[in-house]
């Protein structure tokens, strides 16, 4: 039997994941797995109404249930100035409602009890007397002059308008439109959906009344930032707060914000003096925590007769729910939506965005997305599809004609982004070849003659990920750098501590591999630690595909820092001068004599035992990396669908995904990220919907109504890749966690439209459900 040499874990090695050993044994440690002595359980009483004035709250019946320790209301929190908390977008949010409830499912009271079943029993007994008010469920309604005022508690807030924001050059764009031969427009709605990681949000708050130390085990994608915000919100000294984000069962943006449940559980633990656990159920997760999208978009594209895009004009109306709590950099009121020119060389563009309060859950998280780039990518890719139809051009051809050319990089976009690198035509070509595009077009033509509906969808996305630089991008004022601390022990084994936090992305493996590449220590010998604020350097966390671009860069830089010191130690051991030492694959040697070398392990030992005079002992370091720019992953996705004219059902026959995320550290993990992202994109395109009735009742409040794709519906993906390194990233990587969710929805929808466009159907908003497809066919007299 052939024995495989185990891979060391260099960049490009698909080594198996280090973290898997505990998960496959059922030995992961998620928040709900934590049980502390004396721990109490919290349940939340939530509003059944979307908009109502609270006349009274009675807690006596709940309090009387045996096992109930405390019932917490907003009035009690107000005594500690905790009834309201700041949001990540500079607004305020009720922790527990005192004056009004503003969305269905809003937190009104919390019951703390000795048993979770008892806490639930008692929470149902909290009696709230409401005066029901008219609900506002769309931003269009919200901005009508006579709309009910949702945020009547805010000084100076006289309507439901939140922000107005613009990017690009209006005059130049108007000029481009004036010169255009053709103008194509598209009004589309990217509906509200929810990240729904399989693990819901939760906390075990353990405030030690003797020492004042608070240990918070939290489902947090950003433990350090959360610690700072907790210090500010709760007025606790930051050094006394320790946030531990243990194993996280998926995040996708849902675990970026701070939720009222975290705050109340912490306050309850502080007041009662015992640990308090709160883990939301699925329905609570869906109705009250960070939703995504809910963008109403109008795009206009100016074109020349030969199909060149001359200008782009976009109007956006965002539905932000009852509190403006979007997780996004402070300066950018609609996230990075202004990346809306996408993969195309568009000379003039202008974006106008407005946001409105509605009686819906707050959050506005970037669901597997870098701050609203998903909505932007969707709009431009759908608009280009419309342009292809209008110009009677092939959707691949019109893209090839308008792509930013490889030689144009670095490319400054009309809305102010400097794209780092790209080769869009190449990715497109790889995808077309893999699919067999031309023969499928022929098949489509033949099918069409027989009245059968088949479509081929194309989307060529460009993402912008990896925020900072810190001078432009911050969260609640905290600059978006990230950190890595590396300690190489005397035996040559290492611990790497990071400011980011994996939720399943495989950081324990990927980041160890960066150390392997830079220092030559096998990945198996590099322990990666994250998520404990007492034990890791400060960082902004994992979201917006920023871990590899920022945390990964920090890891490379700290490794290089140690390598420089290691060189000096090696020079001492080899009795050579520092300048003559070279390093390759974990070995230090004098230039020209590679035979005589010292390994990184030799050097590590010497760092503690045999140092040159005057040198500090140890081989440790920390780096805080502020990226000079964002990174811009891209790719082309192709989808083939068949449509049943009798039912409107869409069957995805094939999907080809070609991604370019720069250098791939662990190709196996990268592919896994893309598979997952494509599946979420598929779900969003066809089934995942959070919607509301006229009274503001949430119609997607559990998995019966909020549909997630299973193994049966999910398409079988065919993968391809190109590699265009980022020129400014230390190892050329760009980040990949979100590309597929950003890029794929438009490919799916374009495929459906491609199948029915000849019938005069030009748009079907997501989710593209069978009844909507049938209705569109029926309207054109084309349904069975």
């Amino acid at each position, binding site marked *: 039997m052939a024995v495989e040499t185990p891979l060391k874990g260099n960049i490009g090695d698909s080594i198996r994941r280090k973290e898997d050993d505990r998960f496959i044994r059922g030995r992961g440690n998620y928040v709900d797995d934590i049980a502390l002595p004396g721990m109490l359980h919290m349940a939340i009483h939530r509003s059944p109404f979307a908009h109502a004035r609270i006349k009274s709250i009675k807690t006596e019946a709940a309090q009387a249930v045996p096992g109930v320790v405390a019932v917490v209301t907003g009035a009690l929190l107000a005594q500690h100035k905790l009834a309201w908390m700041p949001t990540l977008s500079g607004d305020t949010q009720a922790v527990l409602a005192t004056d009004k409830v503003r969305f269905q499912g809003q937190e009104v009271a919390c019951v703390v009890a000795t048993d*979770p079943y008892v806490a639930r029993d008692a929470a149902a007994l909290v009696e709230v007397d409401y005066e029901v008010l008219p609900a506002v469920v769309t931003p269009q309604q919200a901005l009508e002059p006579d709309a009910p005022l949702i945020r009547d508690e805010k000084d100076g807030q006289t309507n439901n308008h939140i922000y107005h924001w613009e990017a690009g050059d209006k005059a130049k764009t108007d000029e481009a439109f004036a010169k255009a031969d053709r103008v194509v427009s598209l009004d589309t709605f990217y509906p509200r959906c929810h990240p729904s990681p399989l693990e819901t949000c939760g906390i075990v708050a353990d405030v030690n009344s003797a020492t004042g130390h608070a240990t918070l085990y939290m489902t947090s994608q950003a433990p350090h930032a959360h610690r700072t915000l907790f210090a500010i919100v709760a007025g606790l000294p930051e050094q006394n707060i320790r946030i531990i984000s243990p194993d996280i069962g998926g995040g996708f943006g849902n675990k970026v914000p701070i939720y009222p449940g975290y705050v109340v559980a912490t306050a309850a633990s502080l007041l009662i003096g015992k640990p308090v656990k709160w883990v939301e159920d699925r329905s609570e997760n869906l109705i009250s925590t960070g939703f995504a999208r809910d963008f109403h978009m109008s795009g206009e594209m100016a074109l020349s007769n030969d199909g060149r895009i001359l200008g782009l004009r976009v109007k956006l109306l965002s539905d932000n729910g009852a509190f403006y709590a979007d997780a996004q950099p402070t300066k950018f009121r609609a996230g990075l939506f202004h990346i809306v020119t996408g993969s195309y060389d568009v000379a003039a563009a202008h974006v106008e965005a407005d946001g409105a309060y509605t009686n819906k859950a707050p959050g506005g998280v970037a669901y597997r997305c870098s701050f609203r780039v998903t909505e932007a990518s969707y709009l431009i890719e759908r608009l280009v599809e419309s342009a292809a139809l209008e110009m009677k051009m092939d959707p691949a051809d019109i893209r090839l004609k308008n792509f930013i050319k490889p030689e144009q990089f670095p490319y400054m976009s009309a809305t102010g982004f400097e794209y780092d690198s790209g080769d869009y035509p190449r990715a497109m070509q790889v995808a077309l070849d893999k699919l067999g595009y031309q023969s499928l077009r022929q098949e489509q033509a033949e099918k069409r003659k027989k009245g059968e509906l088949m479509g081929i969808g194309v989307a060529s996305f460009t993402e912008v990920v990896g925020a900072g630089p810190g001078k432009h991008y911050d969260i609640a004022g905290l600059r978006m750098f990230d950190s890595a601390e590396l300690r190489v022990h005397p035996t040559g084994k290492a611990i790497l501590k990071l400011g980011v936090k994996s939720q399943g992305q495989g950081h324990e493996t990927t980041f160890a591999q960066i150390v392997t590449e830079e220092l030559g220590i096998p990945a198996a010998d590099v322990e990666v630690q994250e998520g404990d604020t007492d034990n890791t350097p400060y960082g902004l966390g994992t979201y917006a595909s920023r871990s590899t671009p920022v945390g990964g860069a920090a890891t490379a830089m700290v490794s290089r820092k140690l390598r420089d010191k290691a060189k000096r130690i090696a020079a001492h051991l080899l009795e050579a001068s520092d300048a003559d030492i070279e390093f390759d694959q974990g070995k230090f040697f004098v230039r020209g004599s590679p035979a005589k070398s010292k390994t990184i392990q030799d050097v590590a030992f010497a760092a503690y035992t045999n140092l040159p005079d005057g040198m500090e002992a140890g081989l440790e370091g920390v780096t805080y990396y502020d990226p000079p720019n964002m990174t811009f992953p891209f790719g082309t996705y192709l989808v083939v669908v068949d449509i049943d004219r009798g039912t409107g059902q869409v069957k995805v026959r094939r999907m080809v995904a070609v991604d370019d995320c720069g250098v791939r550290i662990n190709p196996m993990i990268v592919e896994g990220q893309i598979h997952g992202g494509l599946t979420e994109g598929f779900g969003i395109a066809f089934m995942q919907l959070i919607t509301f009735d006229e009274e503001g009742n949430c119609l997607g409040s559990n998995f019966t109504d909020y549909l997630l794709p299973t193994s049966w519906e999910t398409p079988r993906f065919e993968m391809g890749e190109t590699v265009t390194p980022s020129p400014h990233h230390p190892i050329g990587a760009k980040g990949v966690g979100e590309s597929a969710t950003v890029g794929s929805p438009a490919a799916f929808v374009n495929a459906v439209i491609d199948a029915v466009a000849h019938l005069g159907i030009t748009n079907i908003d997501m989710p593209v459900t069978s009844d909507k497809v049938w209705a569109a066919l*029926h309207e054109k007299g084309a349904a069975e």
Partner: protein
Amino acid sequence: MLPAPFEYHAPNTMDEALGLLDELGEDAKVLAGGQSLIPLLKLRFASPAHLVDINKIKDLDFLEERDGMLRVGPLFRHKSAERSSLLASRYQVMADAAPQIADPIIRNRGTIAGSVAHADPSGDWGTVLLALDADLVLRSRSATRTVKAREFFSGPFSTALQPTEILSEIRIPAARPQTGGAYLKLERKVGDFATVAVAVHLQMEDGKVGSAGIGLTAVGPQNIKAGQAEAALRGASLDDTTIKEAAALAAEAAEPTADQRGSVEYKRNVVRVFTERGLKRAYERARGGG
């Protein structure tokens, strides 16, 4: 979500179970597979004071053809229906329906009888029984009675079953030669309730339709038997015109409401399309194909 408190009883015999139901009346619910009832308890949509679990009673998990009847026991589970060669060869409407119930894990525990007794208008088995013209045996401590499937359902989650009774057997006329069936279900994903489903059971005689059964799922306050469509098929030769006519009648029998799954018009159309397709499939199977 967690259930409210209740008392739990796990009788070892049917007599014991019926005695408990007699004593507890409306305060009790029978627990069979529990795949609908336990979620309702967790959501606190139902909070019975007592549960009577019949899973410990022996000999309730059966499927057999005897005395001209196919008999289904109260604990016969969806998964067994899915794997039954008897159903696959002679009762295709059941064999088609079984793997489309909920999801594979739910099918491991959920029972046909439990699903029928639950009487969700979006449930599948009631429709299948309507198409098969089944009888339901309802047993209480003092009496046993038989009710036709078409008289059993009386509205959403509402049936002829009294709180003191257990649905102790489902009886389906044994399939004769030249019988074919089909169950077509439109669902948004695995595990979803039907948007629309149509059950078809055809028995051919001398090239003509001897009898036809058509049931409709999720298009009314209860599972619907499309009687006029069935009548139009009886004695007819199954050509395109007849099929279209029957399908149109089935669509008329549907009383759908608009919801997130689609409009009234859409659902009615799917009934029509599925009835056409179902009749064709059942016909082919009756002739020994597919």
